[in-house]
């Protein structure tokens, strides 16, 4: 685990170079422009999954991230459509709105543990969908459609981000937006986990009673972690709404919530970058198996089972295993 500082820095530089330079270069060279959306999805879904991972880190199985993604999508869509806000402003607001909502929801439900918390959050996803159908402001079953693309973002007259609608390649723009946020998100996560906060979160995961006996405000810490998690969910939902220029009650469902969780498992619950790798593999795996037609799901799930048998602690445990052997 103790990589030297230089190796770490080098790894980060390489990663950034791949994500921001190599990927766009390869895509434009090969002409595989559909990969932009695929990778954008991976980036956004991995942000949401990172949130789920954080709740795992405090010992809660979270199958409710879909609810916050949906909520974030609606907040952004409604602010853009009904109130004429700039998308760029709605992005943090969507995240904060979800964080605030998650505090209210989290205070009672974070007392639950194990499968109970898992189930309640699962139900929460469904509640979000039903609310989206029932509330007047969401436009119910008809969803919100024809949302404009993100406009220009300028500060003091300097255009930081151009209007997406005028761009020739809004896919690239969305890709860059998504990976930038992903990098930021995982930087935050890495810092969280490797600071004392990470240890505190681990103490919650392992024994809440003991943690509170040594003076940890467990209720507070839980809520904070959950709020951060939901913030990530909201942000990723908001961007999805902008990409599809529409949002429906069924835009994020129980299936998504479950997938977020699975991404974390597959990557490895013990590794901060697990959700990123897990999302990449699960999403890309599905995409690659596109060729197999009707056997896609069969092969996909079959491989997932095999992976689980070989690496029950996640893909990243492979590194640990080889190190132990080596």
């Amino acid at each position: 685990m103790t990589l030297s500082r230089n190796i770490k820095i080098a790894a980060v530089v390489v990663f950034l170079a791949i994500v921001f330079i190599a990927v766009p270069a390869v895509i434009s060279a090969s002409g595989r422009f559909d990969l932009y959306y695929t990778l954008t999805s991976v980036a956004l879904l991995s942000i949401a999954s990172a949130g789920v991972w954080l709740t795992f880190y405090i010992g809660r199985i979270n199958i409710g991230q879909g609810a916050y993604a949906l909520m974030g999508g609606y907040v952004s869509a409604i602010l853009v459509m009904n109130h004429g806000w700039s998308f760029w402003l709605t992005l943090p607001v969507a995240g904060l709105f979800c964080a605030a909502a998650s505090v209210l929801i989290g205070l009672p439900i974070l007392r639950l543990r194990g499968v109970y918390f898992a189930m309640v959050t699962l139900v929460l996803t469904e509640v979000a969908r039903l609310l989206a159908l029932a509330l007047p402001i969401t436009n119910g079953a008809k969803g919100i459609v024809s949302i404009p693309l993100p406009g220009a973002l300028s500060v003091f007259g300097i255009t930081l981000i151009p209007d997406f609608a005028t761009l020739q390649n809004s896919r690239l723009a969305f890709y860059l937006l998504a990976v930038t946020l992903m990098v930021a998100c995982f930087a935050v996560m890495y810092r969280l986990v490797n600071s004392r906060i990470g240890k505190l979160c681990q103490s919650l995961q392992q024994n809440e009673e003991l943690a509170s006996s040594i003076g940890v405000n467990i209720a507070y810490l839980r809520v904070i972690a959950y709020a951060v998690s939901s913030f990530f969910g909201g942000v990723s939902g908001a961007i999805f709404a902008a990409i599809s220029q529409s949002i429906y009650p069924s835009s994020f469902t129980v299936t998504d919530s479950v997938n977020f969780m699975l991404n974390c498992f597959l990557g490895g619950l013990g590794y901060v970058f697990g959700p990123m790798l897990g999302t990449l593999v699960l999403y890309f795996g599905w995409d690659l198996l596109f060729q197999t037609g009707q056997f896609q799901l069969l092969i996909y799930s079959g491989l997932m089972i095999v992976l689980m048998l070989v690496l029950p602690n996640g893909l990243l445990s492979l590194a640990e295993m080889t190190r132990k052997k080596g």
Partner: protein
Amino acid sequence: MAEMLEVSGLTKRFGGLVAVNNVSFSVREKEILSVIGPNGAGKSTLFKLISSFLKPTTGEVRLKGERISGLAPHIAARRGVVRTFQETTIFKNMSVRDNVIIAHHLRSKASLFGFFLGTGAAKVDEAAFGQSADEILALLGLSSLANETARNLPHGHLRALGIAIGLATSPSILLLDEPFAGMNHDETMRMVEMVRRLRERGLTILLVEHDMPAVMKISDRLVVLNFGQKIAEGTPSEIQADEKVIEAYLGSEDEAIGL
């Protein structure tokens, strides 16, 4: 000596069962007070009430005159009332040293956000906690196990680790629930010594324990519970001679089995 902790009229019901029934006593500063009594007498429950892990049905607990019962457990800990657990309760998947480091939480000056940013204060804390953890581990004879994952320790060392965690919070009152259970005589005596040293450092200690030789040796005073009620209070020699206590708890000496 000043009154440190005052327990008055404390009662706890679980449904129909009265686990602690109208118990009052007080603990003086730097005192070692033991609570003894048969299994199920309500000792652990009493500890949970004092450390605010349970809310009393009636009655209250005061620390230096201030009411602390009914607070959240981490607030009670912040005020200086910290307990160890009867079961071996530790952070299983952390190293022994990390267990102790994390327990320094209350002493840290930096805020959560400070930790996140890695401010100077946070760094100072980190260094100080590491050092203090090593000292505590040395004190409890756990130094050689510092990097072992806690879940792999044998029973006796787990108990010691539980105490180390309690110590790391630098409490003013430490509540030890059966700290000597699972230790042999030699180890028990070393722990007794250590607890005494803690008291000399200014700690007030409340103790639940079934190991009578140790209890009698270490305690300034004892409180005896039976069926949730206080049936006796006094010095070790008073208690050892108390008919009610012998009847309910100690039993009479039986040379055939060495007790």
